[in-house]
């Protein structure tokens, strides 16, 4: 009995996935703090690691058509353990959503509108996300290709505008980083932009035709990864050595665009494009959280939960970290470690168990 009656086509799934991954284009910055000019390698390695894992998500979803993560957990791990894992997932969604909301807040507080009260930004942003979520996943899916197109446009246009200031010798001392730094970088990249797509396990339930799911997920991931790569290459080429000292290097590169008297100081426009991309990611996460919670509590519809969850998320986002530096530090260490089992272990494990126990039995199907 899946609550969401909405159905999305596999093409829309592709754009949802691409928009989701693109949403964290600004977030690869704290991997830059660790991996400086090898960020592009880390992204490729992260993609290489994340691709099979995401592939396992899709196979799991195709194996249980029309069912979302909470139901799958119940069936695979039995009632009690299934509920525990689902709560673990819900906690993960809640935290990730609050990180993203906080990212928007920090983007505006440090760069664009420093004197606004922080909580005001969060409330307005979460309210708009809540409004989008009340419309249902169908509307988000239909609109997602607009976000992806704007994202790609912005990324490529900034790349072309900055070609004059690019110096491709900044990549040169390859493999200069110690292995532990590279491993941490790869872990971050595979966990944050790509790993969070575990949220799609909730959405793949309402695909109308599941045979193209694998292809569209793969392409969605690819578009997201390509945009991350373009940003990483652009940042390293333009900033070179100074990459490690800025709080948000990709924002700093945009501030360096200086063509004529008009095409300069464009950081606000890029900030807006960034807000739009994160808006899609937050709305998807918000929807996934609401549906997961309503499934856990066995409700008929997730709509009544939307506003209270919004209230909680705003407060969590406001208080979870003290400062952007604290945010970067914790997500680099504890953040990716606590989410590692969720992303890398549980889905393949439940796929394995499903194979062994020959689920889904038609009775409970």
């Amino acid at each position, binding site marked *: 009995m899946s609550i969401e009656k909405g159905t999305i086509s596999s093409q829309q799934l592709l754009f949802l996935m691409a928009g989701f991954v693109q949403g964290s284009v600004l977030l690869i910055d704290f991997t830059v703090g660790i991996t400086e000019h090898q960020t592009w390698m880390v992204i490729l390695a992260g993609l290489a690691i994340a691709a099979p894992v995401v592939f396992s998500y899709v196979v799991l979803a195709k194996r249980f058509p029309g069912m979302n993560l909470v139901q799958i957990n119940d069936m695979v791990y039995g009632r009690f353990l299934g509920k525990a894992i689902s709560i673990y997932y819900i906690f993960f969604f809640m935290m990730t959503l609050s990180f993203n909301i906080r990212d928007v807040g920090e983007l505006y507080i440090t760069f664009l509108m*420093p004197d606004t009260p922080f909580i*005001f930004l969060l409330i307005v942003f979460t309210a708009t996300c809540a409004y989008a979520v009340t419309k249902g996943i169908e509307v988000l899916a239909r609109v997602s290709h607009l976000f992806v197109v704007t994202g790609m446009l912005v990324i490529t246009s900034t790349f072309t505008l900055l070609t004059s200031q690019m110096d491709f010798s900044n990549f040169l001392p390859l493999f200069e980083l110690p292995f532990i730094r590279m491993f941490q970088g790869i872990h971050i990249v595979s966990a944050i932009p790509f790993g969070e797509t575990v949220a799609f396990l909730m959405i793949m339930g309402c695909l109308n035709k599941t045979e193209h799911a694998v292809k569209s997920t793969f392409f969605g991931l690819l578009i997201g990864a390509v945009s991350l790569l373009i940003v990483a290459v652009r940042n390293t080429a333009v900033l070179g050595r100074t990459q490690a000292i800025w709080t948000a290097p990709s924002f700093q590169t945009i501030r360096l665009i200086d063509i004529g008297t008009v095409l300069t100081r464009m950081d606000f426009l890029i900030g807006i494009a960034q807000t739009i991309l994160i808006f899609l990611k937050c709305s998807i996460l918000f929807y996934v959280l609401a549906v997961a919670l309503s499934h856990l509590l066995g409700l008929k519809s997730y709509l009544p939960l939307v506003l209270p969850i919004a209230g909680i998320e705003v407060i969590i986002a406001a208080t979870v970290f003290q400062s952007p530096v604290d945010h970067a530090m914790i997500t680099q260490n504890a953040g990716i470690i606590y989410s590692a089992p969720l992303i890398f272990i549980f889905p393949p494990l439940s796929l394995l168990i499903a194979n062994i126990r020959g689920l889904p039995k038609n009775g409970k199907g």
Partner: protein
Amino acid sequence: MGKKMKIILKCLLFFFMLMTLSGCLSAREINDLEIVVGIGVDKDEEPGKILLTAQVVKDTAGRASENGSEGDGKAFWNVSSRGNSVFDAVRQITYKTGNRLFISHNKAVIFGYDIAAEGLEEYIDYFLRAHEMRPTALILVAEGRASDILNIKPEIEKFPAFNIAKLVDSYVFTSNFYKVNMKEFASCLMSDTSAQMAPLVSIAQDEESNDIYMSGMVVFKRGKMVGKLTHDEVRGLLWVLGKVTSGVIIVPSPNGQGKAVLEIIKAKSKVTPEIKDGKIVIHIKIKEESSLSEQTTTENLADNKALEKIQEALAEAIRREIMLTFDKSRELDADIFGFGEMLHKKYSKEWKYIKDNWDEIYPTLDLIIDVEARIIKTDLLKKPAVPSEGEK
């Protein structure tokens, strides 16, 4: 009403409810903005304090017509204040201006000579960190006090800061100095080996009017000034960096009397460092195209042999300029060419050793310079208008 309508209504009302929140504090009306176009930083008499002068836009249009000629027609107002740090001084300016400074449109940051000599690294941090400060803002060093530079009223431009920005941009025509913005200065400051550069601006002390001119570059090592480069020395540096865009070279004409003056049209350089049996060699290959734009000798240069000879002389002149700059940098012991970074990129294994005692290694570098100069056109004249003695 239907469920859907209620949700739409609820979210819309929720949205407007929020709007009643204490409106946005970062709203600043345009007319209470103090638009800053130039900033000067000088040492103050009291030790440990700095004097910050900010050039603020004064809307003369409104005021001049209103109360006659009170303002002496100056469209800017150099307000200055003292503080222990740059940000402290910036904030204390509000005693005088009543509003916070609006730095987004700042064109240039000029450091006084005394502050540059003592060391910039303490004062540069605010200009990199302030969110309103643009990384594309120019950084300059003034000969004397920065506030004097900012006080001189330019003939054409309304604001001295715009005038300075225009002068700096004019490096393209002579390539005797070059533009350094905050980001470039910061990246050199960060690197362990490269020296930082900044254009030097000074006041020409002729009798009736004193105007500003760019008088070369200043070299810093880890933020501390170590020396100055004259125009020719900077040209040598630009040859190596490949940033020569135009400029004039004077070469003795082949038959000895008079000179041939050439305009550089295009120049490319390729620098490849190489470590051969413990010795670091830098191969510099420069391709240059120029045009014969003037000739004071009466000799007929419009034949291949003469042009060949001039091209060799040109190549020799360029090589001499580069060696001149290299000797000066060796004397200042500052890696202004950025060879250290190139070595870092190519030989990352040996880099640890090089980095530690770079100051000893740098003077021992030797350059192999290979210049290929070509004269591609002689503009309108083929032969000089002066009749050569032979034909008379």
